[in-house]
């Protein structure tokens, strides 16, 4: 009679809070993971409790509640819970700079060069007005750089994200204040986890 209830839990960070210093401070991660992401998950659980959504996977809640842009209340918390986990896993200590592996070939094929990827990604991240995210995604088998507002992510358009950068102000304000371009450059130069990107690419390609 009773459906399986999936109460979402706050997934642990894949590294210690101070692991990304000096490029992303321990303080920022304490807040970003410990308060922001935790709140999205707690609020999501409250919202879906006793509804048909509560037995669904997180990705399915996202696509189901998006409503073509006319989103139901649970969309925001569900998408933000997903986006933040994807973001934290998109980073690693001693990361960044040009990748090796399959992603490198695709970047050259679809975006011209690593330098051009950097240029496009920086532009997307710095011109997303207000809150949002900058993504490297697969769309119909091709790499694209894109930006989304607030909680929106590429899942709602049927695309496959591979890498994301959070450009909500809370993501960088303690470390960079208003200097979003510096934050974006630091992320690209020091933090991008290309191993994870390659793993996500492999999973995506296996599905094709």
């Amino acid at each position, binding site marked *: 009679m009773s459906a399986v209830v999936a109460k979402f839990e706050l997934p642990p960070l894949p590294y210690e809070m101070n692991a990304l210093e000096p490029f992303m401070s321990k*303080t920022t991660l304490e*807040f970003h993971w410990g*308060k922001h992401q935790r709140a999205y998950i707690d609020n999501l659980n409250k919202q879906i409790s006793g509804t048909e959504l509560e037995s669904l996977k997180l990705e399915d809640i996202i696509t189901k509640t998006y409503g073509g842009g006319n989103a139901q209340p649970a969309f*925001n918390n569900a998408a933000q819970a997903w986006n933040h986990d994807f973001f934290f896993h998109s980073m690693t200590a001693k990361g960044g700079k040009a990748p090796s592996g399959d992603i490198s070939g695709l970047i050259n094929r679809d975006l011209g060069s690593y330098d051009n990827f950097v240029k496009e990604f920086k532009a997307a991240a710095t011109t997303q*007005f*207000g*809150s*949002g995210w900058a993504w490297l995604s697969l769309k119909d088998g091709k790499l694209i750089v894109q930006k989304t*507002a*607030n*909680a929106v992510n590429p899942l709602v358009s049927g695309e496959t994200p591979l890498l994301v950068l959070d450009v*909500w*102000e*809370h993501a960088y*304000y*303690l470390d960079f*204040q*208003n200097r979003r371009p510096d934050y974006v450059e630091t992320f690209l130069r020091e933090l991008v986890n290309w191993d994870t990107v390659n793993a996500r690419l492999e999973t995506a390609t296996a599905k094709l």
Partner: protein
Amino acid sequence: MAVAGQQSRASHSFTLPDLDYDYGELEPAISGEIMKLHHTKHHQTYITNFVKALEQLEQAEKDGNAEAIVKLQGAINFNGGGHVNHSIFWKNLAPSKSGGGEPPEGKLASAIKDEFGSLEKLIAKMNADGAALQGSGWVWLGLNKDLKQLAVQTTANQDPLASKGLVPLLGIDVWEHAYYLQAWTDYKNVKPDYLKNIWKVINWSDVSSRYEANL
């Protein structure tokens, strides 16, 4: 003053307005550190980018480049809206020694009572709507000039309140840059605490003037 008609029309009229108080004078409601960054970096950047977009617009018009003209509207609206909104915001605030936090009187006070029941109820509504706003934006007390009615309304990003058919009387910035640096020191519950405390420095006299000027 234009010289021989050659000067760009855009660059002369938009500059960062001075505040009527020092950066630290709104403490402890809003920290001096936040006020300084908010004014000299965020607001200034909106103005700089607004002027740049207007200069590009002027050139696109000269070139007859319709596509470029349309494309520039986004930047003009974002940055121009940011300049308009923040210019109102600085006037909506005052240190307590200059009347900040003193409740409204006269016509505005009556209108608030009629529309919302009490000042406390208005504040509660603005705080609730501000807290519920997802992403970046503002929560406003506005005036519907046609109906002569007050309304609480949120806007996204730097969209001006005029886009909702209301005259802005009081705006509270709920972009994260407006309060985030107090997350560690004063406001453990960040946004709600900021909203609760900002009422101590609201310049109701300025809000009243705007109200009466638009009746």
